[in-house]
Each structure stands twice: as structure tokens, then as C-alpha cells.
């Protein structure tokens, strides 16, 4: 029995994650919402730690956040493949920008096999509507 972790990702309307190594977008309210909604430390790599510079107490910086994230832990991923860790992912917290951005890297897993547990919209600091979807893996 492997570990079961929660992965947090932000995607545009086409499943895009990054373009030329840069993030598509960011939003202060989204980061605050995430920090308030999970209690475990959030595993991030150096690239993503920038987003949490005002909430440094909430993150654990790692070169391999998906590998290092413990059972029951949370990993916020912007620029890493998820597929190699698909067996470890028990829950996905997906933030949808509800926008089209350029992308050359898109999400590499499908949500086939995940069940939508909840869905809510909120207003971001620079986005009119961000949708938060929580999905858990079907057992």
C-alpha cells in the first residue's frame, strides 16, 4: 500500500500549465484560500515557493515535492509532470482560471478514475471567477 497525497494544480481552459517555463497566471486570493483550506504543510519546489512568500510558514520547499510529500500531505505543483506519481495521488484540488492562456506544457494525467467531491467559484485578486474542484480517486 503506497502513500496517498493531495495534489494542487492550476489550469487554464485547455489544461495548460506553463509556457516557455513561465507560469500562466497567479492570484493572491487563490494562495490565501488554499492556505486556509488545508492544514498540512504544502510541499512546493523553488519555482512555486515564490507564490507563498507571504505564507512561508505554510510551505516546505523541496526539489522533489511529489516524491518527498508524505502520506496525507499536500503538494502544490505548477511545472512538474504528475504521471510518474499517479499511483500516489489520492486527491486533486484543481483551481481553474476560467481563462485561455498560452501553453506549451499541459497536464499529463486525465481525471478519469477521479470523482468530483465538491466544486465552488470565488473571486480572485486578478481573476473574475476561479473555480475550485476537489476530486478523489475512485477505489
Amino acid at each position, binding site marked *: 500500500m503506497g502513500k496517498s497525497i493531495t495534489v494542487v494544480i492550476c489550469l487554464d481552459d*485547455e489544461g495548460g500549465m506553463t509556457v516557455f517555463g513561465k507560469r500562466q497566471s497567479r*492570484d493572491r486570493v487563490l494562495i490565501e484560500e488554499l492556505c486556509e483550506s488545508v492544514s498540512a504543510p504544502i510541499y512546493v519546489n523553488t519555482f512555486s515557493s515564490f507564490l507563498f512568500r507571504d505564507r512561508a510558514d505554510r510551505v516546505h520547499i523541496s526539489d522533489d515535492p511529489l516524491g518527498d510529500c508524505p502520506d496525507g500531505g499536500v503538494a502544490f505543483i505548477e511545472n512538474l509532470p504528475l504521471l510518474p506519481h499517479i499511483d500516489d495521488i489520492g486527491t486533486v484540488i*484543481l483551481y481553474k482560471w476560467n481563462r485561455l*492562456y498560452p501553453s506549451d506544457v499541459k497536464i499529463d494525467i*486525465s481525471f*478519469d478514475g477521479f470523482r468530483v467531491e465538491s466544486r465552488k467559484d470565488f473571486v480572485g*485578486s486578478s481573476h473574475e471567477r476561479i473555480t475550485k474542484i476537489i476530486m478523489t480517486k475512485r477505489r
Partner: protein
Amino acid sequence: MKALLKNLTALLLLLSLVFGFAACTLPGDDTESYNEEPIYIEGIGEIPAFSGKAWISVNDNKPLFTESEITLESFERYAPLDPLGRCGEAFACVGTDIMPTDKREGSLSSVTPTGFINKEYDIVDGGFLYNRCHLIGWQLTGENANKYNLITGTRFMNIDGMLKYENMIADYVKETGNHVMYRVTPIFEDNDLVARGVLMEMYSVEDEGEEISFCIFAYNNQPGISINYRTGESKLNDGVPYPDDEPVELPDSDGPDYIINISTKKYHLPTCQHATGNNAREYYGTEDELIQDGYEACKVCKP
């Protein structure tokens, strides 16, 4: 094979439910063939022919802004129309102070960009091939029916090529309060009335390009449609390119009517000693049009 198809269908259905987009034919499918010539851009070099992708990075993805052009003061400038009535570069330093705060209102139909011979196709999302396409998107500077900022652009270029980068810039500026240098230059070949594409340069100033730094060419193409760039006519792609004939002739002219300075907003006689500098542009048109666009006569040459 059936199992594979079943899984693929399920995946597409799930993606459409989660992302809210329907499964559709993607540009660049192998059913398309593109055999156009490469495009040449001064300062950039040769751009590969359209292969179904909406945009590519050029110049190693490095924008061409000079140090003296980069500023923390918001502005927007639009080049005058050339003798054929075509737009030139649109240049802005985008900041929150010049971004629109209201909803967009008003129609663009009062402006007819060159080559705007529109036609409806079943294979084009939204129906019509062409949009009146903002060089600098409305959401960045609030310029709507501005004839210096509207070109004939395919739906594909407008949405898949340009809008995505405009969204990225707009949301970055709103989130950070920072500035983004943004220049969009339509690329015309010879006397074509429809641009082959646009060169889009963008650079976030305060963080020195850390979050925004791109040099992109967006193709003014539409998958499945063949465009006559000379005139703006179009047809379903039947594999027979439009003949490269009947060039549009330049109107008879002894030179520009005025020289304008797009920074100081003054207009000069072409012979004026002040009609020089980086911001000087040739202008073909009437004095009334210039005054209407906010230009003032030079007090030295008194045009």
C-alpha cells in the same frame, strides 16, 4: 482498438466536463496540408510557413525592445496608416492606469481594415473567417474602434494566437500592478492588404522579464481555409493556392503629406527641420484627420 476508442471517448467526455470545452478537431490535424512560403521579418529573419500551430516563438523568444524604449510610464502609441491604408506597429507600456475599468461597449463596424472581405464558413468557430482584430487588445488599453489598431485577422489568429497572450498580460498587470512593454507589428508582404501575421513582443518591466518575456509570431491563417493575402478573398482549402498576381498598386504619390511625431503629437511639413527622430512617421492623409486624431500643427513650419 475498440477499448482504446472507448477510453479515448471517456477521456474527452471527462475533459469536456471538467474544463468546459467540447471535444473538437484540433488545428494541425493531419487532414490539413499547408504549403505556403516562409515569411521574412526584418530584424528577425525567416519565419517557417504555417503548419497548423497558431503561434511560434521567434528571435530565441527575446523581445526586441531597446533599453531606451523600456519605461515605467504607461503609454500607448499607434503608427499612422500607410499609403494603402494599412496599420503599422502598435506600442504600449501597459499599466493599471491605462487599462479599461468599464465593460466594453460600442461596435467596431465603423472601421473597415484593409482586405476585410469577410465570408462565412461552417468550419470556422463563430462562422465568419475574419475579425476586426485589435493589435493591442481592448482589455489592455481600452482602445476599441481605433482605425490605427484594427487589422483584418482570422478568428484563429485572434483567439488562439493573440487573445491568450493578451489575457496573460492583463491578469499579470492586474495582479502585480507592474508594467508590461507590449508591441504588436502586423507583417505585410509587398502590397498585400491582409497581414501574414503579427509579431508580438512583451516584457514585464519591474521584474525584468521574470514573469513576462516573449517574442511571438502569430499566424494570420485559418485551418482549412485558403486566403488571398493580396485582396482578402478566401475559399475552402482545395490545395490550389491563389495565384500571386494582380499586385495592388501604390497610389500615385510624391511622398507623404505630413510627417507626424507619435510621441509629441505634432505634425510637420515633410521639409520641416523638426520632422525627424525615432518617433517621426510618414503620414498620408488630410490635415483634418490629423486634428481629429489629436495632432497639433508644428509652430515652426506651420503646415
